[in-house]
C-alpha cells in the first residue's frame, strides 16, 4: 500500500477514536441494567438484599419458649446483651415456630473465653463506663480461689451478679456507693 505518512497518522488517530468509542460502548453493554437509577450502584441490589433470609431474631424471639432463662436474663445485668451473641442465631435453631437444630452451649473453659471476649482489660478501647473489665488472673487471685476457676463458678451466666448480690445480702456486706 502506498499511503502518505500524514494519511497513516490520520488512520492511527481515527483508530484511537474508534477504540475509545468501542470502549465506551463496551462499558455501556457491561453495566448492569438497574445501575444508576438511584445513585452509583445497582438499584436491584436493594430488592435482592431484602430477600436475604433474616438469620437473627431478637431476645424477645427467644423469650417465648425459654421462659426460665428469660426470667433470669431480664432481671440481671446482662439484660441488654443479645442471647444470640453467646448462643448462635435464631435461624439455626427455630423454623416455623418449631425447634429444628441444637445451638452450641459453651461449657467450663469455653465459658471463660467467652466472657473475656467482652470483659478483658487487655482490650484497651473498652471504656469502664460502658463495660466493666477484669484482668486475669488477678481477678481470681483477688477472690482467693484457685486460678483454674471458670467465670460461671461465681457468676451466673445469664445474670452475672445474681449470686454475688445474694451473697452480699446474706453476709450483710455492703460497700459505699454500690
Amino acid at each position, binding site marked *: 500500500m502506498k499511503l502518505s505518512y*500524514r494519511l497513516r497518522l490520520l488512520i492511527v488517530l481515527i483508530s484511537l477514536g474508534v477504540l475509545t468509542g468501542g470502549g465506551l460502548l463496551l462499558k455501556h453493554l457491561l453495566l448492569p441494567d438497574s445501575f444508576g437509577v438511584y445513585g452509583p450502584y445497582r438499584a436491584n441490589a436493594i430488592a435482592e438484599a431484602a430477600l436475604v433470609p433474616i438469620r437473627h431474631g431478637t431476645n424477645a424471639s427467644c423469650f417465648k419458649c425459654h421462659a426460665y432463662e428469660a426470667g433470669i436474663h431480664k432481671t440481671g445485668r446482662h439484660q441488654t446483651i443479645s442471647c444470640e451473641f453467646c448462643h448462635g442465631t435464631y435461624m439455626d435453631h427455630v423454623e416455623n415456630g418449631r425447634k429444628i437444630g441444637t445451638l452450641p452451649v459453651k461449657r467450663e473453659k469455653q465459658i471463660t473465653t467467652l466472657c473475656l471476649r467482652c470483659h*478483658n482489660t487487655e482490650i484497651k*478501647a473498652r471504656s469502664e463506663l460502658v463495660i466493666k473489665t477484669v484482668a486475669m488472673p488477678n481477678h481470681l487471685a483477688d477472690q482467693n480461689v484457685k486460678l483454674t476457676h471458670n467465670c460461671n463458678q461465681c457468676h451466673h451466666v445469664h445474670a452475672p451478679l445474681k449470686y454475688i448480690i445474694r451473697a452480699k445480702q446474706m453476709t450483710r456486706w455492703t460497700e459505699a456507693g454500690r
Partner: protein
Amino acid sequence: MDAVNGTATMLISNYVFPNDLHVHWSMMIVLYPYITGLVDGAFIIAALYYLFDIKSLKPLARFSLLFALAFLCCATLPLLLHLGRPERNLNMLLTPSPSSAMAGFGYIYAVSMGVLVFIVLFVYRPDLVVLRDTSKGLLKLLYRAITFDSRDLSTYSLALDRKIIRFLVGIGIPIAAVLHGYVGFIFGGVKAIPTWSTPLMPVIFLFSACLSGISAIILAYIVIRKITGRSIDSDCIKTCIKTLTLFFILAFAFEMLEVFSHSYLKSGYHHMVEGLLNGPLASSFWLWQVKICSVIPLVILGVMAFFRMGRAMYHFWAAVVSAILLLQVLIMRWNVVIGGQLMSKSARGYTEFHPQWFDKEGILAVIIVMAIPFMILFVLSRIFPFWTPDNETTVT
C-alpha cells in the same frame, strides 16, 4: 482474637481500637506512590529537553522516556497485588463516579500510558525506520507496526513528528503532574488519618516524585554507562544535579514546613502526630528521613554546587547523592503510608508494623515488584536503543 490475648498486645500502647490494630495498607501501598513518582520525575527530564529545549539533557532525554515507560507499566501492579480480588478493579472503571477517587486514577493512568507510548514512538521513529531494515522476522514485523509501516523520513514528516512530540509532551506534563498529584490527593482524601488529610499532600508528593525520578535517572545513567564502558556526559549530569537540587530543596522544605506549621498551630490532632513522630517513627522519620537522607545530601549538593571538582569526582558524588535521595523518598513514602496508620482513631494509642518476608505484600513481593520494571526496561532496550549514536563514544 489472638490480638486480644496473644503477642500482639505487646506492641500496642494506650487505647487502640481493635480495627486499628493491624496496618491494612502496607508495603505495596508504599510502592504505589514510589513507582508513580519515579515515572513522574523521569518524565520531567524528558520534558525539559523536548519542550523547554534544555539542550544539555539530550543524552538522557530518550532514556528517561523509556525509564518512565518501564515504570509506568508497573505502576498499578502493587495496587492489584494489594487487592484480594484484583480482577474487580475493572468494575470500578466500568462504574466511575465522583465519589470514587480510585476510578479517577484508573482513567488518568490510561491516558498517561497512551500519551507516553506515542511520545516514545514518535521520538524513536527515525531510528526505528533504520532498525526495521536491519532486523528480521518477528522483530521486523514489530518495527513495521510501531513505525505505522511507513519509511517516510523526509524533512517535512520529521518536522511534523517534532510538532507532534512537542504537543504530546506539552499535554504530557500536566498529565504526569496530575497522575502523581492525584496519588497524593488519594491519600490526602482519607479524612480518617490525620497525617494524610492535608491539602498539602499532592504538593509534597509531586515534589518528592520529581526528586526520586530525577535521582533514579542520574543513578541509572551513570551505572549503565559505567557498566557498558561508555563515556558519561558531564554537562548533562550537571544540569540534572542542578534540577535535582531545586526539586530537593522544594520537597524537603515542604515536608518540614508541614510538620512545623502543624506543631506551631497545634492544630487538631497535633498532640497525636507529635507523639507519632517522636515515638514509633522517631528513627525512621527524624533519623533516617531527615538527618541521614536529607541533611547529608543537602550538604553534598551544596559542596557540588559551590566547589570545583574533577569530572570523575563529580560523577561519583552525583551517583551517591542520587542513591541517598532515592532512599529518602522511599523512606518518606513509608513514613507517610505506614506511619500514618500507626496511630489509632481513638487519638490515643499507637500500634506497630512488622513487615513479613513471605506475605502477599511482604518484603519478597516488594523486591519482585521493584525488579519487574528493570526487566521491562531491558526488553525495551532491545527494541529501542537507549543512547543516540553521537554520544556512543567509549571510554579508553
